[in-house]
């Protein structure tokens, strides 16, 4: 819990530190599905978190913190659920009217520690965004997850992260936000030097929330 609070404070400070032309901050409700290693090991759950975005001219930054409670789904071989804390951050620079290049990081930790893989990686990718109406912006991103680290060891040469974000100004400073992320990590392990085994990780998450713009 303390890590969640610390993360939120960091997000808030990061948001305030940015010399933003626009800053949004708000809570989010999340739905998530998580699969690991084999199709039998799957979880679903919900959670809460927060998001902050900032923009200064061509530079923009986003960060989210989520705390998810994931439980085994029907038919899952897992016997118990776990709690995942996920921190995502992006910094993007507009290279065109509707496109940006971005870098960022992802950090997801599991509690209990060995109930699922904790992951940390660097994001490198691009996004396309478009204002489809007054105060309504839609965004699609694709990031490569570079140099991933896992709590259980192993490596992943191919890892991708897709995102679909929607931001709609509801009234005055109040915005409605919705975000979808799909994450696929081709993790490979070599337990006991017996040769590489596939241990992929796949997560989808939807975040819906409100935000106040400053």
């Amino acid at each position, binding site marked *: 819990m303390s890590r969640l609070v610390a993360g939120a404070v960091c997000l808030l400070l990061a948001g305030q530190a940015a010399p933003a032309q626009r800053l949004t901050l708000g809570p989010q409700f999340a739905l998530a599905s998580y699969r690991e290693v084999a199709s039998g090991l799957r979880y679903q759950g919900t959670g809460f978190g927060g998001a902050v975005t900032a923009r200064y001219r061509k530079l923009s930054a986003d960060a989210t913190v989520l705390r998810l409670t994931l439980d085994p789904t029907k038919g899952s071989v897992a016997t118990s659920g776990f709690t995942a804390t996920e921190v995502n951050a992006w910094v993007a620079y507009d290279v065109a009217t509707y496109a940006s290049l971005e870098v960022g990081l992802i950090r997801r930790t599991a509690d209990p520690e060995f109930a699922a893989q904790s992951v940390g990686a660097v994001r490198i990718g691009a996004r396309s965004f478009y204002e489809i*109406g*007054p105060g309504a912006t839609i965004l699609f991103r694709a990031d490569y997850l570079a140099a991933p680290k896992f709590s259980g060891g192993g490596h992943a040469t191919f890892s991708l992260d897709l995102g679909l974000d929607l931001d709609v100004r509801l009234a005055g400073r109040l915005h409605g936000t919705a975000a*979808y992320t799909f994450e696929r990590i081709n993790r490979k392990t070599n337990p006991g030097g017996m040769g590489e085994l596939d241990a992929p990780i796949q997560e989808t998450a939807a975040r819906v929330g409100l935000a106040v713009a400053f």
Partner: protein
Amino acid sequence: MIRHLRVLALLAGFGVPTAARAQTIENAALRRAQQAYDNLEYRQVLSLARAALRERLTGSERARAYELLGFTYGAMDSILKAVDAFKQVVLIDPERQLDPNRVSPKAYSAFDVALRQVLLVRQLRVDSTTFVGGQGAVPIRFAVTQPARVVTRAIGSGRSFLIDSGAWNGQVNLTWPARLANGDPVPAGNYTVVVEARLGQNAFSGSQPIRLSHGMVDTLPHLTSLPGYQYLPETEVPPQSWRPLGLAFLYTGGALIGTLGLESSSLGSSSKRELAVVGGAALATGLVMTLRKPAPRPAAANILYNRLLRDQIARRNQEIERENVARRQQVQLTVVALPKPTGGVPR
């Protein structure tokens, strides 16, 4: 018969002296002379007019008496005597004019000859005017009846300013810039424009009083718009289109295709409820934005046009400001002609 003669005289144009004028004449002899002239009794006119001239008459009555003599001599074909009589008229009243449409050609030519035989400064006019010191002048007009040395001066404020000195004959048009030698305007006050004409021993002068006042030059107001040029709206409402919904489909479809394509076969098909929630929201938003009136967007051409217009107005206002600085240092001179003393002064 008398009636016929009257009609003939009127047709000949001798009808200038009128009964109305006769009523204003106070001297009895002159009044009778006028009545005799009206009755075409020329011999009686001559005796009565001469008798009147021997009496005490006002200047205008004396001029009228000589004028009656001039017209009568003209009617009697005594042109030389008519000229002599008209000479006396113009010496008494230099501004006297005859209307060529209403007097006989004989009388008019006798009057014209009389004018040429005496030195007069006539019809001195100083037009009322307003101008900025150094950028205008006071127009002065007069007529000299004989070739003469003419000196024109403005006298006032304890000083005399030479306006012109030259040999003139006929109509003369002069301008007086009303400036001192150092370029400053002459002091405000009442002046008398005096025109002195000299020909040998003969001299004549005419004068016209004027009032010269100083004032501030009007400054120009700053512009807020250019005549004929209006600011254009800097935003325009684009036509309604399906673009928002299309983009929502495109982006959501991209996420869906990416998800399906990247799903691990070993992990099985992933849950689509997350994508359904967010994709559904995106499509709904796209539909709403499609059906909604589009938001105004900046009109680049209009913005550029308005910027150019603002630059033009700002540039013009800078010019006006510079001009106003100069205008505040200028003096506006106003010249008003005052009532003129009667007649000229033969010397």
